């Protein structure tokens, strides 16, 4: 469903992606792990055209991702994104955040958007927060509203960019719980994360990225339990046993 073929990307002199080739099948959950600055987030941002890429090709359901082409809107409505810092619209309530896309991008009838919006907030456990503004919500609640906002577009896949990195530790579980349910329901997900437990239990496959290349990839349990490459072994040892 999502194909990356030899994707290169530089920020000035600094080449952050050095030929990424990967694919994500429908219904698959793929976690991308690796040290910070390795290019994980950049991959996600290239897939929905928030960032351009220099060489290679990315396609979503056969449609080439080109952030300067009109087709990018089409791709973005099919591939939603959840951000590390939530990026909810602070001037709108939780419910308004959720229905913004359906109303103004997809032009759904208001009654229908509202009904679906409420159902989505209930799905992420925030039915009673529909009228709250983002600053009145905890980080975990904000991130769950952001997931509902992504779901409201009825996407074929969702990209998660370190969705729990900005959260207090005790709030991480709620967000991961919502994500696990989505995975169980068959949503196609690409998740950049440092939550190795989530990756091991929920992901079908894990990509380990370092220095802009895929160092190792494979089924989640196998890769995280018996990493083959020394850099993967070293990274996992540091993450799992920081002391």
């Amino acid at each position: 469903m999502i194909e990356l073929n030899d994707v290169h990307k530089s920020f000035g002199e600094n080449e952050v992606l050095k030929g990424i080739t990967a694919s994500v099948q429908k219904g698959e959950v793929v976690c991308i792990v690796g040290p910070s600055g390795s290019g994980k987030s950049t991959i996600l941002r290239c897939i929905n055209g928030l960032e351009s890429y220099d060489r290679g090709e990315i396609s979503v359901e056969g449609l080439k991702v080109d952030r300067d082409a009109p087709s990018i809107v089409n791709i973005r409505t099919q591939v939603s994104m959840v951000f590390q810092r939530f990026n909810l619209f602070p001037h709108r309530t939780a419910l308004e955040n959720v229905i913004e896309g359906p109303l103004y991008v997809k032009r759904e009838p208001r009654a229908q958007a509202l009904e679906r919006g409420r159902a989505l907030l209930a799905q992420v456990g925030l039915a009673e927060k529909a009228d709250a503004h983002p600053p009145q919500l905890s980080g975990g609640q904000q991130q769950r509203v952001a997931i509902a906002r992504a779901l409201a577009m009825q996407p074929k896949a969702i990209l998660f960019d370190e969705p729990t990195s900005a959260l207090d530790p005790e709030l991480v579980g709620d967000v991961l719980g919502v994500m696990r349910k989505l995975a169980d329901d068959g949503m196609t997900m690409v998740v950049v994360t440092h939550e190795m437990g989530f990756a091991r239990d929920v992901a079908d496959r894990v990509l380990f990225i370092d220095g802009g290349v895929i160092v190792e990839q494979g089924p989640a349990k196998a890769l995280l339990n018996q990493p083959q490459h020394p850099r993967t072994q070293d990274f996992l040892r540091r993450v799992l046993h920081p002391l």
Partner: protein
Amino acid sequence: MKGFWHDAAEFFPILMNGVVLTIVVTIGSLLLSTVLGLVWAMMRVSGIKALSMISASLINVIRGIPIIVLLFYLYFVMPDLGVTLSALQAAILGLGIAYSAYQAENFRAGIEAIDKGQIEAAQSIGMGWWLTMRRVVLPQAVRIVLPPYGNVMIMMLKDSSQASTITVAELALQGKLIASSTFKNTNVFTLVALMYLTMSIPLILLVRHFEKRAGKR
């Protein structure tokens, strides 16, 4: 003091005619400068190089010309080019254009103060440039922009007196006419000053209200 109140009662009705024109010029040029300022600011942040450069140079040209010269140009030079404007039209146009440069810079600062993550979130749900502006950026920028906008309103009210130089009989010119025919300079100009101040006070309170609201978040 008794003399002042006596004169005030006598001149007040005439000066009120001036006040009406002062308000017309202020509101007219405020609206014009807001619309033009928004256009310049949008061009500036459009991401299209040509538009952004045109807007930047325009703003600099406008900022570099004194308001009074702009007014003279519109009122005295434009007729030579075949465009005749009434004094009131020239005043509103001149002040509107002159202030559009400041409005534009104010609006641009407000737009650029919005977190990039907001724009990315809008893009990620498929919003195009204009929809992002209208639904996400501008509603948030308004809060940031309002306090300086209120200050511009006060400055415009006072600068509307420059319209007197091209014969618009607003408050300052009415005062000057009465003073030169009665020689009661002190009383007349004190009254004129008090009338400007009276009109400014609601605006000053409005700015304070905007600042409080902006400070809440």
